[in-house]
């Protein structure tokens, strides 16, 4: 049988291990796993640059601590550097708690991988994710002592790098959005317009609990944010944010996805409220905008009629195929995939542990 020129890889990180699945058509999936059984997998990066598929995972054992491992053979074998890919320098006095984000950079910077971690920190690797260096500008930021922890911990969970590699946006919970215009050397809070209703001053310079940010595929300076209540867009590189929550059934949620190529297209998974983190009326639906948040379309074909589990910030992903695939998993351990940008979903896994992270990619062969 001839090997497919390309196929799809789906990686599902859960509270108790990692599952990997491949598919020729995004309909039928072949699974392996659990890998790293009994360890949390809160972060996954699929790096398809440099002519290979490298799967990077943040692994957190409640007993044996956090680490970063990678596989270049679709999970058949895993490696981790002897002294750890992410290791706080001695002078910081800090210890890594959990890797929340692994973000392979642009095609033009093939060895560069970014990571976001707890305690709140950003890291950069130039060797494909085998060794990371702490971003000192953010680590030594004067706001640090005032950043706080959300329920899941205090972490940098979103890293968005522009194609030129100069402008970097980081989002942290809690702290908000920070922007660097010099490739990560210096950072400024950029939260104007984002509400922090849970603080004495609801419009502070920083302290917002942004849950996820993502960049528009085609419009420079445009980003989207799902906040702890509030869905926002910026058109000026985060200098100002405006609400785009109108038309959504709820402005709470964790997920923010953007299209790999098309401008104005983003997906969210609304949850009823901070105090009731379930899909509105117990009916799970993805919402997509095709006009940068001016309107939203409810997408629920193929999703269950009742669902009381939430979808966490990194438990959702898009692939780069045409049309784009949309994937997400619930805390109830069910994973759904759409091969048509969310118009219809199929259940691809169920009864897994809580899904913490989902990533999907088009890969060679497999």
């Amino acid at each position, binding site marked *: 049988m001839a090997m497919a020129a390309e196929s799809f890889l789906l990686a599902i990180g859960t509270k108790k291990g990692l599952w990997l699945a491949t598919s020729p058509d995004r309909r039928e999936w072949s699974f392996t796993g659990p890998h790293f059984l*009994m360890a949390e997998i809160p972060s996954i990066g699929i790096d398809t640059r440099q002519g290979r598929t490298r799967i990077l995972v943040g692994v957190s*054992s*409640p*007993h*044996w*601590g956090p*680490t970063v491992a990678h596989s270049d053979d679709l999970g058949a074998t895993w490696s*981790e550097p*002897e*002294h*750890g890919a992410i*290791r*706080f320098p*001695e002078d910081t*006095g*800090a*210890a*890594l708690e959990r890797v929340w984000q692994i973000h392979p950079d642009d095609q033009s910077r093939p060895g560069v991988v970014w990571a976001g971690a707890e305690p709140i920190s950003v890291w950069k690797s130039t060797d494909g994710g085998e060794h990371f260096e702490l971003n000192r500008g953010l680590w030594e930021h004067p706001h640090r002592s005032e950043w706080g922890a959300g329920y899941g911990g205090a972490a940098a969970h979103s890293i968005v790098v522009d194609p030129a590699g100069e402008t970097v946006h980081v989002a942290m919970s809690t702290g908000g959005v920070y922007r660097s215009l010099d490739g990560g050397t210096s950072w400024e809070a950029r939260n104007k317009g984002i509400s922090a209703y849970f603080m004495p001053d609801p419009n502070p310079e920083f302290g917002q609990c942004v849950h996820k940010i993502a960049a528009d595929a085609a419009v420079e300076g445009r980003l989207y944010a799902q906040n702890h209540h509030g869905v926002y867009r910026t058109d000026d590189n985060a200098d100002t944010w405006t609400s785009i929550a109108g038309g959504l059934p709820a402005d709470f949620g964790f997920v923010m996805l953007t299209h790999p190529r098309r401008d104005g297209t983003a997906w969210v998974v609304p949850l009823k409220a901070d105090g009731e983190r379930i899909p509105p009326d117990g009916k799970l639906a993805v919402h997509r905008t095709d006009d940068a948040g001016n309107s939203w379309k409810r997408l629920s074909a193929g999703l269950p009629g009742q669902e009381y589990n939430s979808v966490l910030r990194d438990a959702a992903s898009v692939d780069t195929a045409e049309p784009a695939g949309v994937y997400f998993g619930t805390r109830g351990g069910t994973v759904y995939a759409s091969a048509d940008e969310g118009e219809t979903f199929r259940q691809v896994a169920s009864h897994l542990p809580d899904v913490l992270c989902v990533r999907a990619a088009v890969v060679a062969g497999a």
Partner: protein
Amino acid sequence: MPEISLLLPGVLQPLAGGQSVLSTPAEGPVTVARLLDAVASDYAVLGRRIRDETGALRRFVNIYVNGDEVRRLQGLDTEVQPGQEVLVIQSVAGG
């Protein structure tokens, strides 16, 4: 020369080349920290599973010297005598 034995739980043994006991020569008392330093120099990943990069014992890892958990003694400064055994055991935690 007398030795101090470090007994590993099964889950950590693959990180020590499959060994269940690591023996370190010792002519006199050695602190648990020094003992773990010696282990980490031979098996770095194993060392990272037991202690974080600040040198602190991971929260849900327990080390017993002569039947006592070191947190009830002098922590990682607890001295181990030649001939004694040191047990590494994961605590009962999780769900």
